[in-house]
């Protein structure tokens, strides 16, 4: 799950990035409004966490640009402005949720999950594909109703593949949803993860499309 965090405060941004990474998300952290606007046009994210008081371009302005250009990425506003008027303004400008600082990290996590679920058209909190059930909240994977151990990155990879069954995902897309920009990784790490998943899940439904990427067969 790749998230965009737009927050100008050094200490808070750093804390949120680490905190959400602990939950298994890949967090790309941008510190000013203009760069954020540029990045949202050129990259895709599962969800955007948006602070309102930003340099160069305010959070609300970014949100306006986003929605007017048809971008439907879920957005959670994170702000010190707690008045009802501000909340109404934020939600009416196009945010899907509004959290006031200080906030609970676990609550932020839960709201992120809820919004991503909704944006995928699901209401169920667990996701089932054939004999596999994944629970993003618990980070658990069950095969034939038996829990199997799947480390963080492989879980993220599996989730991305299963949620996009029938769609070919390029190596780049898969890498981006599992590793952040600033992470230095070996070029064949993706192959290692895929190999591990296939073995653990007995998943011959994970197909390699040579020269393009990977795909999970449609159910």
């Amino acid at each position: 799950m790749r998230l965009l965090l737009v927050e100008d405060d050094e200490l808070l941004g750093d804390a949120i990035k680490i905190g959400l990474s602990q939950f298994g998300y890949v967090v790309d952290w941008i510190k000013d409004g203009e760069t954020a606007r540029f990045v949202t046009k050129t990259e895709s994210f599962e969800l955007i966490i948006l602070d309102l008081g930003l340099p160069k371009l305010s959070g609300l302005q970014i949100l306006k640009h986003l929605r007017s250009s048809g971008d439907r990425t879920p957005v959670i506003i994170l702000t010190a402005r707690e008045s009802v008027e501000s909340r109404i303004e934020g939600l009416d400008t196009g945010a899907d949720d509004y959290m006031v600082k200080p906030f609970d990290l676990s609550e932020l996590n839960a709201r992120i999950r809820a919004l991503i679920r909704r944006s995928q058209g699901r209401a169920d909190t667990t996701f089932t594909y054939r004999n596999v059930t994944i629970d993003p909240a618990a980070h658990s994977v069950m095969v034939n109703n038996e829990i199997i151990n799947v480390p963080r990155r492989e879980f993220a990879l599996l989730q991305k593949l299963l949620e996009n069954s029938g769609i070919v995902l390029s190596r780049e897309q898969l890498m981006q949803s599992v590793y952040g920009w600033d992470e230095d990784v070996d070029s064949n790490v993706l192959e290692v993860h895929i190999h591990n998943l296939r073995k653990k899940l007995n998943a011959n439904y994970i197909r390699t499309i040579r020269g393009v990427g990977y795909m999970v067969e449609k159910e």
Partner: protein
Amino acid sequence: MKSSLQRILLSHLFLTILFALLLITANYFDFEPIVYSIASLFIIINIYYRYIIAKGLSSINSITKELANRAPNHLEPVSIKSYPSEIKPVVNELNRLLARLKEGFEREKRFAADAAHELRTPLAALKVQAQVALNTHDVAEKDAALEKLITSVNRGTHIVQQLLTMSKLFPDVIKQSDLEDIDLAKIAREVLAVHAPHALEKKIQLELDACHQTMHFKGNPTTINILINNLIDNAIRYCQENNEIFVRTYEKKKSVILEVRDTGPGIPKALRSRVFERFFRVLGNKSQGSGLGLSIVKQICELHNGKVTLKAPKKGTGVIISVFFPCDF
């Protein structure tokens, strides 16, 4: 203690009774009618005077009652209905005092709200960092998170201290008893001595060029110390390694001037006029200021009837802040 109005009333009462007696005795002794008329006129005039004075007193009473019945936070002006012109100046001054009090209270309320708002982000960082520490079993990660937590607490502490400083500057007049002869160079030397180790650590060069002060100006040494402290603290905060900070005191045209010049990254032109605003921070740089430093400087400067300017140097980058203390304060 009898008021002067009450004394007048009593003496008039006494005189009225006296004249009434005179009238009665005049009746007995068959005085001229003119005596009757004068006495009657006097009595009527007295009654009229008593009526006017009583009316004046009653309007004072009604103002007193209105004020006594007020809730403590009711600072609206006393309404001017009909009362004697002697009382008007008092009521006017009272209303002006009430207006100043009201403005003072509203400013404090706004300040408290602003302060609370400013602390939300640092507190959020604290909470998230604590949760990050709890969510990991890796000792190294836990320790890293806890160290960042302490940095956040230090930042929050700094903000709180600046807030307290600001709030103490609120009655914006210095009492005559708090004014002393100021040796600006001496205070500057003291402040720089305190900051020198920190500047050294950050590899920033800090220098003072203080001329011998011939002009006298009166000021409050504590607040001037805070002013210089904030200027130096600001400069060190926003300067980078190998930048320089030059502090200079000199005299010019009836003012004693403090100049703090640095060769740091400077402030973009568009933002220069805004840096003295409360809580305004030039966003996008990495340091953890409170946003209050320069507004404290401005406030203290104004307390001394002075002025403060901010410019960019003609060559290179940086900031030149000059504080002018007039010598006739």
